[in-house]
């Protein structure tokens, strides 16, 4: 173990890696702070820049963007009542009233302290639990992986927006697009129609950028949306140790809620923030002040939101299944670098895992530094008008997509996926189920077919082992709970 740790330290501690995590957190905080730009969009735009990097460096950059994005969403939520991310909408409830009272600085400080603490707790849970889970998963074969991936597909219910039926239809479309290419068993063509560019299937990044970046940009240009308002001045004194102590109980509770919900595929930051907030309000002595500018409300929402960051990486690293859209994108990034997250990665490349852990821990510290010293800069950048910002984002999409294989076919795929994404947006079809299914589809099909080959065609192999049965039960229970939960918790379903 010590040898691996020393190797990991050697792998991580390069000048480039130490800086890249900081750069990732800063980029994420900026992207998160810009209303209209989501964290998945930020991760998607940064992904092409990681191709030529070492796997550790590239993945840490993406993780930095993810963590920075979660925090950045709170900045504009507090200053201009425009949450940069869905999860930050809970921070608005008390953050913006604090700004109106002239205590913006205090709210921003508390959001930062709660975010950093929750992020640290979440990272610790990742380090402690991922290895244990991975060692259990070493016993998995194709049937177990098939049922596990099927279970993880239930996250589609959590990211389906306002219609589960449309979410499943969107996922079906994603699965169908994932089928394009050569058949892995017989080597025959599937939907090539004479175009040999499609032999290897559709590249992940054009699909990702087309679905997550282009529709928002097309909508802006077509609707001629108004440019954003200026931030309120960051007035008032900052939050001190006494404020942190007063809110500590809510921060700790929110962090644990974030860890618990983050580790379950499909729930994400928004429900965690709202649950943490409602628990804080229920137990607080100042419950009447909630919604009118209570600092504890900001702390609870941000702790719940950021508590998921490390925990969503647990199923990704240990089992190779993503917990949400961003970890699905990071799974794609692993694959681009020739790595497959899951139990085998812990056996074959444990030093890489440790190096990632070191980088993830460092990101908590960087989050604090970025939040403390660059908040004025971030809020200024968030004021850049969309008429300047979006053409540059489009330029990034163009160059980033071209850079994958150095051909214009990927650019064409990105443009067509953008058109599809825009039509889906018009019809209120959610894009995340499409992407998750697109990534998990080939894994699901391959494991299904490998299982059948192993059993000489007998379908009973999928029900034979206790692990398979456990995942079948979890899938059914998860579907029932998620569907019932959607009926009751409308704000959480987005």
């Amino acid at each position, binding site marked *: 173990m010590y040898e691996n740790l020393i190797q990991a330290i050697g792998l991580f501690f390069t000048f480039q890696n130490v800086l890249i995590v900081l750069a990732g957190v800063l980029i994420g905080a900026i992207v998160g702070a810009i209303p209209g730009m989501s964290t998945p969009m930020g991760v998607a735009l940064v992904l092409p820049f990681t191709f030529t990097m070492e796997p550790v460096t590239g993945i840490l950059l993406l993780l930095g963007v993810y963590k920075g994005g979660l925090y950045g969403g709170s900045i504009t939520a507090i200053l201009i009542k425009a949450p940069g991310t869905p999860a930050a909408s809970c921070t608005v409830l008390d953050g913006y009233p604090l700004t109106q009272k002239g205590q913006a600085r205090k709210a921003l400080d508390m959001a930062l302290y709660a975010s950093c603490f929750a992020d640290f707790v979440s990272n610790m849970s990742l380090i402690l639990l991922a290895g244990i889970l991975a060692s259990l998963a070493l016993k998995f074969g194709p049937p177990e992986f098939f049922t596990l991936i099927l279970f993880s597909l239930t996250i589609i219910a959590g990211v389906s927006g306002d219609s589960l039926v449309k979410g499943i239809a969107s996922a079906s479309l994603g699965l169908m697009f994932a089928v394009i290419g050569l058949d892995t068993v017989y080597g025959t063509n599937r939907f090539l129609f004479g175009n040999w560019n499609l032999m290897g299937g559709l590249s992940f990044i054009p699909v990702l950028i087309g679905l997550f970046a282009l529709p928002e940009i097309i909508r802006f240009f077509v609707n001629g949306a108004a440019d954003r308002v200026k931030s309120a001045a960051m007035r008032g004194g900052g939050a001190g140790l006494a404020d942190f102590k007063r809110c500590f109980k809510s921060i700790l509770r929110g962090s644990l809620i974030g860890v618990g919900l983050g580790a379950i595929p499909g729930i994400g930051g928004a429900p965690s923030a709202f649950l943490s907030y409602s628990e804080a309000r229920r137990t607080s002595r100042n419950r009447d002040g909630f919604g009118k500018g209570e600092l504890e409300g900001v702390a609870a929402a941000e702790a719940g939101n950021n508590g998921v960051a490390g925990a969503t990486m647990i199923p990704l690293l240990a089992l190779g299944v993503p917990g949400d859209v961003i970890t699905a994108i990071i799974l794609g990034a692993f694959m681009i670098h020739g790595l497959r997250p899951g139990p085998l990665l812990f056996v074959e490349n444990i030093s890489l895992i440790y190096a990632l852990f070191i980088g993830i821990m460092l990101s908590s510290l960087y989050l604090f530094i970025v939040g403390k010293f660059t908040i004025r800069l971030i809020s200024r950048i968030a004021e850049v008008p969309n008429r300047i910002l979006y053409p540059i984002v489009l330029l990034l999409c163009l160059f980033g997509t071209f850079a994958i294989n150095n051909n214009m076919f990927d650019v064409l795929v990105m443009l067509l996926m953008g058109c599809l994404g825009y039509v889906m*947006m*018009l019809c209120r079809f959610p894009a995340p189920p499409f992407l998750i299914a697109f990534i998990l589809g080939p894994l699901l099909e391959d494991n299904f077919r490998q299982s059948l080959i192993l059993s000489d065609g007998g379908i009973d192999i999928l029900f034979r082992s206790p692990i398979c049965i456990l995942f079948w039960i979890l899938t059914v229970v998860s579907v029932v709970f998620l569907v019932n939960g959607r009926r009751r918790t409308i704000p959480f379903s987005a």
Partner: protein
Amino acid sequence: MRESRLIGLVITVLGLLALVVLIPVGIVTPSNVERLALAPDFWPNIIASVFVMMGIILLIAPARYEVPSSGEQPYRSAHATRLVLLLGILFGVYVATPRLGLVVPAMLMVFGLSWLAGERRWKRLIILSFASPIALAAFFTYIASVPIPLGVFEFIYG
């Protein structure tokens, strides 16, 4: 509800089209497949069937499985001319790149899009549309070692 029904109809038709035309024509299935479940078209057929089922559900009971919208208007007021202009610029870049390289079409794209979005300060427009593609091309060429087709700018980077 009418909109959901229409979407349901489109999904059903597309799914049936996939089942009847796209899959049989687009997927080559060898004659020696022993098990149905191992055939290359088995999985696509299941996916298309699920797609059709979702379409039928939207068609029959559009409101039953849908959480009411938060009140935000869907994008009905899409301005057709702006959409055509935008798509013209985007696909224009795709068509022009093999002849002109990536940098010049990208410059024209940034200029055209910023103008389309309402930027009228010419100095800012020109600086932005020149500087940003050149900076990105420089990054990908020198730092990421990606051979970006530079077109007329080939001589600058040598």
